């Protein structure tokens, strides 16, 4: 009887064990190790001493002009792309919700960028924003619409390079926002709208006084998820501008990666990684307060 009891109590742990082993080895242990590394001038050569430097790498980050620029660039990237995705995503979802035919077709269409690899779409935008007059964006702006007199060398200046990066970020993410908002729209209670229609509410009135307030929790949720995702942006910047020219388009993760794997400053890079993780953690805590936990997706 006793062994049967023991077996019963052990059962859930046995089911958890193999999966947890992966998490422990590849996520939990590295998380502790990262903190340990961040307190040292880590020597990548095994067996060599790595002097303890306390929290000085964390201090170093805030005195580092490039890190501060990367933080600013990241914050701006998040603000602009999140707002763009949200406005367009909600707009498309509202239109799709009212559409009588062809909803699945358009939903699929808008979702295609979301399922396409970041590497591929980053190279694609690099090509579209090519500086030659034959670059597609230059061609459309100069020859087709005459909005610009001259072709622009988009990726040579931080300002214009970020226009390309923002467009990419928004273009890739609208579909994700749209799918979540559309699902929320379709689960809204019908009777509110019927009651409003009977009371003579116009379409715009029911949009602003019923639909949007009812959507608010979902919008807040999407806002937070997009913000968390935006802070982690790496591939588009790494592949489109490489953080250049002269580190001017660096974001948190491109700078962290460079510090780690180009300059071999493992200690400083780990401190930066912890600062980013702390930012993301605070934002996701805000989400847990506001809403039940949700899944993070593609």
């Amino acid at each position: 009887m006793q062994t049967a009891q023991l077996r019963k109590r052990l059962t859930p742990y046995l089911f958890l064990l193999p999966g947890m082993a992966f998490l422990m080895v590849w996520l939990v242990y590295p998380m502790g190790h990262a903190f340990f590394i961040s307190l040292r001038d880590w020597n990548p050569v095994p067996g060599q001493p790595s002097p303890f430097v306390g929290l000085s790498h964390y201090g170093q980050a805030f005195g580092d002009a490039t890190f501060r620029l990367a933080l600013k660039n990241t914050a701006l990237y998040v603000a602009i792309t999140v707002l763009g995705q949200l406005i367009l995503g909600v707009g498309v979802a509202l239109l799709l919700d009212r559409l009588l035919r062809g909803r699945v077709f358009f939903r699929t269409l808008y979702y295609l960028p979301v399922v396409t690899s970041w590497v591929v779409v980053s190279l694609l935008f690099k090509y579209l924003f090519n500086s030659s007059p034959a670059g597609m964006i230059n061609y459309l702006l100069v020859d087709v619409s005459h909005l610009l007199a001259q072709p622009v060398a988009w990726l040579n200046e931080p300002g214009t390079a970020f226009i390309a990066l923002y467009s990419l970020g928004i273009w890739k993410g609208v579909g994700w926002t749209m799918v979540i908002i559309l699902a929320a729209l379709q689960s809204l209670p019908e009777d509110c709208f019927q009651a409003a229609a009977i009371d003579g509410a116009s379409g715009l009135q029911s949009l602003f006084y019923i639909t949007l307030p009812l959507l608010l929790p979902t919008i807040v949720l999407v806002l937070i998820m997009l913000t968390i995702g935006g802070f982690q942006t790496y591939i588009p910047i790494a592949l489109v501008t490489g953080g250049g020219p002269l580190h001017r388009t660096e974001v948190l993760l491109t700078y962290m990666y460079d510090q780690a794997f180009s300059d071999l400053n493992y200690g400083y890079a780990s401190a930066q990684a912890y600062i980013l993780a702390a930012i993301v953690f605070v934002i996701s805590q805000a989400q847990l307060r506001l809403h039940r936990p949700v899944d993070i997706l593609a």
Partner: protein
Amino acid sequence: MKRRNAIHQAIYVILLSLGGLATIFPFIYMISTSLKGPVYVFELPPRLIPSNPTLQNFVSAWTSNNFGRYFLNSLGVTVVTTLLVVWLGSMMAFALARFEFALKKPLYYLVMFFMMMPAMSLIVPQFILAARLKQVDTLSGLVLLYVAQNIPLATFLLRGFLEQVPREIEEAALIDGASAWDVYWRILLPLSKPALATAAIFASLGAWDEYVWAFTIINTPEKRTLPVGIAAFHGVHLSDWGLVFAASLIAVVPVMVLFIALQKYFIKGMTAGALKG
């Protein structure tokens, strides 16, 4: 009234088509460029319909530029990762959904925590670990990390599903003397097929598209996966866009086909957590 509705519908379709055009245009241009010879990649005006279309880029990507090899690497890594993630994740989900035990809550929060945690923030210690375990420059080094990174989401999705499966069937089986493993393997897994499909889709997409880890630990060109192979090819042949996009399409088309075929599982996975607030 009816006419007004028809006008509204027409306006919606026009607006959605304009947005849809902006969404799809880069893809169309990518396909078009992949069919162009090198001299036509920067012709003025740029053409959407290539003047001398050729499949040469696809042929040379697949044969002389190793993309066939990269495709197989990606496929192998993705399949092994997905199987492990779905298997291990479903066992964890089973434990978390069907048992009461002391560490249940902390372990569940741990899973949730790693779903939120920025994946790249641990890359330095993970790289050191991979070096210690002799996993640098190996495909198994890719699988090990991808499994760890994708288990939390799979566990979360599957646990949410299992919580809603009524317990009557398995209780009857338990009375008949079935073991916990029987309940998991013979009763719950077959019932969970839609959720397993959702979890498998997200795990395979995660592995198929992963770039940063593969770029970091793989040195030998023959061991590259598709994303790394594409980026590396672009790094060397900066203006050979036709070939870059031919290789890109080799990577992207399977995903798009999968997405279009299995759309309902995609959408379910995305909205499951987000909406049952």
